[in-house]
């Protein structure tokens, strides 16, 4: 698994780890049941504090993405990928609701809103179809 830490991004290191593990689970790079590096070995590899890795793993465990098994290590939850996918879909719906509300307040018609969505997708190099 690829994990890169930036010390100048301004984003706390534990958040950088969380985000990259989330991405790896979602992309299928990390699969259900797979073991993550131990706290101490990952901290040593990345030259970061053990507590920072502990915090990232614990928060991902609370999200239901990872599971800490006492004495064995940290594993990807079997439903982790589905759960993340659902969370993201939920985010999309919430943000679309907001966009529709804002559009109505600003008197933007639905056709114009569709165009804006297409433009936004077109401006994002990673968006397809």
């Amino acid at each position, binding site marked *: 698994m690829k994990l890169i*830490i930036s*010390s100048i991004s*301004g984003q*706390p*290191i*534990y958040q950088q780890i969380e985000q990259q593990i989330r991405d790896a689970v979602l992309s299928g790079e990390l699969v259900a049941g797979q073991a993550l590096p131990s*706290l*101490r*070995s990952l*901290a*040593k590899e990345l*030259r*970061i*504090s*053990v*507590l*920072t890795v*502990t*915090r990232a793993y614990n928060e991902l465990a609370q999200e239901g993405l990872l599971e800490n098994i*006492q004495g064995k290590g940290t594993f990807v939850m079997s439903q982790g990928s589905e759960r993340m996918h659902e969370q993201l879909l939920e985010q999309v719906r919430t943000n679309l609701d907001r966009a529709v509300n804002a559009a109505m307040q600003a008197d933007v018609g639905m056709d114009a809103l569709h165009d804006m969505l297409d433009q936004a997708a077109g401006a994002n190099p990673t968006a397809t179809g």
Partner: protein
Amino acid sequence: MNDNSGGGIQYALRVNDVGKHYPSDKGGSQGRTFSLDGVTFDLPMGYIMGLIGPNGAGKSTLIRLLLNMVKRDQGSIKILGMDNLLQEEAVKTQLGVVFDTSYFINLWTVDRCGKAMAPLYPNWSQTVFLDYLQRFGLDPAKKVKELSRGMQMKLMLAVALSHDARLLVLDEPTSGLDVLARDELMNLLADYIADGRHSVLFSTHITTDLERSADFITYINDGSLYYTGPRDEFEDAFVLLHGAPGDVSQAQRSLALGLREFSTGFDALVAVEHVGAFLAAGQDGPTTALADPDRYSQERPGFDDILRLTARRSKAPQGNTGVVTAAADYDTEVEA
């Protein structure tokens, strides 16, 4: 996280209400007194703790108290589960120490330093010592006085690591080292604690040393404990706010933990839980400040921001008492 990999010892270090009072400063020029007041903190086994604070805050005094180089006036210190006075000898065989300047005799060779230290430690391994000399590029035949500052630090480190010390105490080990040597040291410390059986306490005023590797921070400010706990929580506990010059009310001043005003604006360090109150306490009432999100900008402060805005200098500034001049380069530090 209930690993017993520390070999049964839960805390590498427990400092409880430790204090030391000096009647006057070493120099004695101003008859200034210094005291370290009731400092309490714990370092769990298997972690790195950074000891920070401005020069003269009491970091070195604290380290000397741990090592019983000065006598404490109050409190208790447990090192590796043992009382540091009652079981001083047993404690010291398991303790490795690195100071900012070499404690070896200048005319000794590197090899002789090892031979002098070996009898003091029952767990001394000459093989490990020679391995470290090689790894650090230390020539056994060289004299201490011929070594650079970085090399002298490495020699002390080689000694500390050659008798299976469970706790390393380093006093400003990185001062005067270049970025490569600092990086090398931090890597070594990360390896050292990786098995969960070893711990490190090191004092520094180079905060970049801490940003990645330190698990815990203990911040000593003007002789008292300002913070002790996980490093992440320390960084998360504050918000740095910026605003226009003079746009800070009396109420906001008292909410700020530290304030620096300059001719083109101000920096205010505010506890996370007080940011809302700070924004609501603008000079012209809460509504205008809250309605205009651009009026104050907010960011997550770095270590240096937190230190420069909270540090108290115990000495009064000499001569110039910090009057703001027209140039923005000249800052005054304003205590909240």
